[in-house]
């Protein structure tokens, strides 16, 4: 598998292959084609970051532009999913969840349970999260912890082009509502990706680095940050087990616990703000289930409890980086009772 493509291309390929595979897959979102009703080109944008580019002409009638009405079109995707379609709706920025959250958490997520197991709602909501593009407070948030709290949702945080393609294919084939969180600073990241279609199962962590001294659990874009930290740590003799859970819900608790049982130490890296986030979630899991193995305090490397600042000078301090992961890891490795 020598071919390398970008995260963006990997997502586009997954969409294309799934649309070929299953005619019930449709795509919708603001400017997912672009140019609706306008005098110029018809597929003018392919989404604000180009992920859906080209699908409009390849799949006539199956890529829908929408007005700016997230409740209506996200709700429409959900409604269509209950009637035999497999819609993939794009919520352009995850920060826009505030204008459509009801449809996601009170409707899609609850149908199955609330209706006594009689509903199937195979909808995917693709959305862009994360800091790093100087996009400021309302376009840079890492809000996947909020979706993770919601019973009935599955939440995916692909960490590489390979993961992106296989997890998106899985998301589309999955029969439950899936929130698919793409990191905006990764669209141009390249990696090896098989041309043929494949899926990556939910709830199975990927072991990114193997080590005996400490477990580092990281999510989404933080996986590469953690891997970089692990490489630096290895140079100074600390061997880290780096886990990418791939999905925050379901969470592969088994792999995390197994690793900590072995290493006795845990660092969690989460780009989200620190309260009630995935870092606390994993830390609590371990403090409950693997306490006997723990040999040091659990460290969490996260954003601070502030909105995302605009200025590059501040944003660079805001986002967890390899250095902070290295420092946190060293502190737990060196910890003495």
């Amino acid at each position: 598998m020598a071919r390398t493509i970008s995260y963006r291309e990997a997502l586009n390929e997954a969409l294309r292959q799934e649309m070929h595979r299953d005619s019930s897959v449709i795509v919708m979102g603001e400017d997912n084609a672009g140019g609706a009703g306008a005098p110029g080109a018809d597929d003018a944008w392919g989404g604000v970051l180009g992920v859906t580019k080209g699908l409009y002409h390849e799949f006539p009638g199956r890529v829908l532009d929408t007005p700016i009405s997230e409740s209506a079109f996200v709700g429409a995707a959900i409604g269509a999913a209950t009637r035999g379609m497999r819609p993939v709706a794009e919520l352009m920025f995850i920060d826009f969840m505030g204008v459509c959250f009801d449809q996601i958490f009170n409707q899609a997520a609850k149908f199955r349970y609330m209706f006594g197991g009689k509903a199937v709602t195979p909808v995917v909501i693709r959305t862009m999260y994360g800091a790093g593009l100087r996009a400021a407070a309302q376009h840079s948030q890492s809000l996947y912890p909020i979706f993770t709290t919601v019973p009935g949702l599955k939440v995916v945080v692909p960490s590489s082009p390979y993961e992106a393609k296989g997890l998106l294919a899985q998301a589309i084939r999955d029969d439950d509502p899936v929130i698919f969180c793409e990191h905006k600073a990764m669209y141009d990241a390249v990696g090896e990706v098989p041309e043929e279609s494949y899926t990556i199962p939910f709830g199975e962590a990927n072991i990114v680095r193997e080590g005996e001294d400490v477990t580092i659990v990281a999510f989404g874009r933080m996986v590469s940050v953690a891997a970089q930290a692990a490489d630096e740590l290895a140079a100074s003799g600390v061997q880290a087990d780096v886990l990418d859970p791939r999905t925050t819900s379901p969470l592969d608790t088994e792999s995390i616990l197994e690793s900590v049982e072995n290493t006795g130490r845990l660092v969690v890296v989460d780009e989200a703000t620190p309260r009630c986030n995935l870092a606390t979630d994993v830390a609590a899991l371990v403090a409950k289930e693997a306490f006997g193995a723990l040999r040091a305090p659990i460290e969490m490397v996260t954003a601070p409890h502030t909105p995302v600042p605009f200025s590059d000078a501040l944003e660079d301090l805001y986002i967890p980086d390899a250095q902070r992961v290295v420092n946190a890891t060293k502190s737990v490795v060196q910890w003495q009772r």
Partner: protein
Amino acid sequence: MTETLSTPAAGELNAEGLLDAYRTMRTIRVFEERVHDEFATGEIPGFVHLYAGEEASATGVCSHLDARDSIASTHRGHGHCIAKGVDPVEMMAEIYGKRTGSCHGKGGSMHIADLSKGMLGANGIVGGGPPLICGTALAAKQQNNGGVGVAFFGDGASNQGTTLESLNLASVWNLPAIFVAENNGYAEATASTWSVAADNIADRAAGFGMPGVIVDGFDFFAVHEAAGEAISRAREGGGPTLIEVKFTRYFGHFEGDQQAYRADEVANARDKLDCLKRFRARVTESGQLESSALDTVDSEVAALIESAVTEAKAAPKPTGVDLETDVYVSY
């Protein structure tokens, strides 16, 4: 584009259709009055909102619908459920929180649904249904099966952003969607004349590029005709319609509401405007149906609801093994 329809002729309904419609309205009425009585005994848990008085709306609209079609409802959903074919026996059991209920007791009055009947659920969120119906209408359009989606919502819900943006989306996508604004004069204790900053909810249709129609909601035939027109237009690709149905609810906002905000409008409505009375008078006077045929329906319905309550009371509750099941299709 807003127009008020005067009572039309009975239209295409034959005797069987008329009897079906009567049975549906009667079932809703007796179901609701019984829930009202049983609630007063304290045996029914939770929040219950009754549809009595509004039967002609659900019935007039749903009598046009079939398996291709879907509806979304509200917290006041029993009538829509019954009209779309959900089993009243399972519904009653659901309201009692029993395992035999439509949702195995996990949903309750505010969440009765039957996806197999195209009934997407009552809804605890005001304005929750219209976006979903854009989706079921979209599915019908993509599947090219002539199906429509119908969103029922209240006057209060007509002020919710989710409802308003759904009107626009349905028009932009030219969806086979019908928006039925059930204006019963109140959202909780708030008058719709106050909360809706327009003379009629239907007046909003023009701003979203669709026809708006106002009908007398006590008149089954008026609703039936307006809905019929809108639904055939939608089936033929003519896009969405907003229908405003005006009437009065017979009970409080929820069971327990003291209704201090109301004048005595209900007594008059029950006496002079009631949809069942009017229906009976009209079809018997015109000779379309015999009074005795309607009486037979009345006794059948009474027996059905009686047994629904008996079964509901006797049915088992869900147990611990049910608590964590059916959150996901696959785990």
